[in-house]
């Protein structure tokens, strides 16, 4: 049960870490339990074997996990996932002989082998891709047909093995390698940006494989753990697709996605190089929730959306969480002098929270998140950097000095001055598209739940 608790707690940022520990503790107990309660004669060297494997695995796993850079985490997950898959497949290979003739058990075993090895080889490819070892998505001609063919053949073959009651190890190995090959082919053509989804999918595969093992042995721990991961993983996969606005089918079959940058194609001219990073309301909310200082930069879009009441509520909500929030008012934000003042005064924003440009500019570098709401020209670095731009020489709010920048607007359309804004392509910038009012309201309800 500890897994359930663990996973549940993982679902909330505050409790996530504890959840992880609980799950780990549960796992340790299960392992020890298995060893000590095993009923049957076991030569002692087997114990040594097991112990050795565990010790080596632990040390290796720990070291790899600790050493690797934060940015390489997803690869690592993929790698570890592959290990699990391999382990499941190997079990199947060994156990096969013990169950010859028992159709259902064999069926379970071959299913475990297929799924485990797909998971293994697929994970390895995913790992290689993320790692950069494999760069280009590879794509054989008629790829979809070929792939589907292979999996069908594999399944038919597996059915045959189970049904016929054969005890040919050869068949089994053929199956094993066939599945490995399928795993490779399955993942190979998928773009790098979609990898997390694929990993999550493979993850749930491994879970399934583990569950099958549990079924075989009537081992509850394996069964529940595996199924839990299988189902949770599947849901998670869908959730991730959702967050990326793609369908799973699209990710697996449709994506010719060239190495995965979502290019800024919607409506903006393509002159700017680099790519923008979209973010979701949940992510933005989390980022805000774990900040200490937030500066809100309101612009004309706030007025258009009539989102003044919403932003005030957001500000109060953040403040109530102990976060320091203020507004940075650019002198020409909006369309008339004092536009932002009028707007915010309507909501009774404390005058002390409105900071003038000169005062606030030095503060950005100590700011965790700058939330730019419907402002554009007033935060456009082109005013400093590009002498040919019509706003060159205008003082701006130097939000690019902040640690994170979240920009809310409806599209990539330019503002009053009609020029592109390279801030949108900044590494630190996440774009939160949508009408200011509804976006802020969603942020509020998201934040309230934290």
């Amino acid at each position, binding site marked *: 049960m500890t897994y359930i608790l663990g996973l549940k707690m993982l679902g909330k940022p505050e409790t996530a870490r504890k959840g992880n520990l609980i799950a780990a503790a549960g796992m340790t107990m299960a392992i020890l339990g298995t060893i000590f309660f095993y009923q049957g004669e076991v030569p002692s060297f087997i114990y040594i074997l097991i112990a050795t494997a565990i010790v080596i695995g632990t040390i290796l796993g720990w070291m790899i996990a600790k050493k690797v850079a934060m940015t390489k985490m997803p690869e690592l997950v993929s790698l570890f996932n592959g290990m699990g898959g391999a382990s499941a497949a190997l079990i199947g290979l060994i156990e096969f002989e013990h169950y010859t003739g028992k159709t259902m058990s064999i069926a379970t075993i071959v299913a475990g082998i297929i799924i485990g090895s797909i998971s293994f080889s697929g994970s390895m490819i995913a790992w290689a891709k993320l790692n950069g070892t494999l760069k280009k998505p590879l794509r054989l001609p008629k790829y979809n047909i070929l792939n589907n063919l292979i999996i069908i053949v594999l399944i038919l073959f597996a059915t045959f093995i189970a049904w016929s009651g054969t005890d040919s190890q050869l068949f089994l190995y053929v199956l094993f390698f066939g599945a490995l090959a399928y795993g490779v082919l399955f993942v190979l053509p998928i773009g790098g940006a979609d990898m*997390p989804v694929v990993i999550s999918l493979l993850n749930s595969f491994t879970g399934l494989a583990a569950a099958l093992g549990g079924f075989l042995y009537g081992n509850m721990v394996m069964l529940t753990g595996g199924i839990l991961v299988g189902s949770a993983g599947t849901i998670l996969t869908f959730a991730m697709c959702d967050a990326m606005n793609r369908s799973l089918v699209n990710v697996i079959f449709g994506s010719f996605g060239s190495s995965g940058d979502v290019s800024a194609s919607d409506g903006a001219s393509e002159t700017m190089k680099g790519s923008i990073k979209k973010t979701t309301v949940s992510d933005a909310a989390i980022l805000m929730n774990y900040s200490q200082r937030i500066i809100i930069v309101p612009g004309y879009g706030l007025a258009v959306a009539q989102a003044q009441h919403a932003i005030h509520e957001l500000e109060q909500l953040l403040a109530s969480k102990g976060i320091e929030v203020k507004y940075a008012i650019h002198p020409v934000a909006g369309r008339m002098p004092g536009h932002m003042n009028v707007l915010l005064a309507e909501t009774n924003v404390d005058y002390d929270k409105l900071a003038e440009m000169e005062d606030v500019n030095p503060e950005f570098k100590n700011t965790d998140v700058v939330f730019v709401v419907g402002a554009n020209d007033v935060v456009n670095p082109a005013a400093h950097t590009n002498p040919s731009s019509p706003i060159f020489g205008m003082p701006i709010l130097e939000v690019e000095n902040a640690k994170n920048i979240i920009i809310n607007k409806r599209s990539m359309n330019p503002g009053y001055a009609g020029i592109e804004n390279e801030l949108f392509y900044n590494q630190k910038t996440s774009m939160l598209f949508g009408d200011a009012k509804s976006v802020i309201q969603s942020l509020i309800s998201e934040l309230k739940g934290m």
Partner: protein
Amino acid sequence: MTQLIEFISDNIQMIYIVVLMIFVGVEIIGHVPAVLHTPLMSGANAIHGVVIIGAILVLLGVNPENYLGQALGFVAVLLGTLNVVGGFVVTDRMLEMFKKKK
């Protein structure tokens, strides 16, 4: 066919558990914020490391003469451990990021 039915009725409780577990899994994941997707995936990844138990069982039950089996089993346990330990540690590291700064 009869075999299948027999199998089902033999394992009715197991099937029950499977269905329930799926239910629990779905229920729990429900709506998690997108930022937690990766840690959650990683945590789930660690959990399915339970295959290690299977691997241990295999090793425990393997014929002492079956060296191939022992070797494979050994590898299986090793890989499983890697999965479990690595998975948990990585998850923990990821989650460190969410700690409230002082």
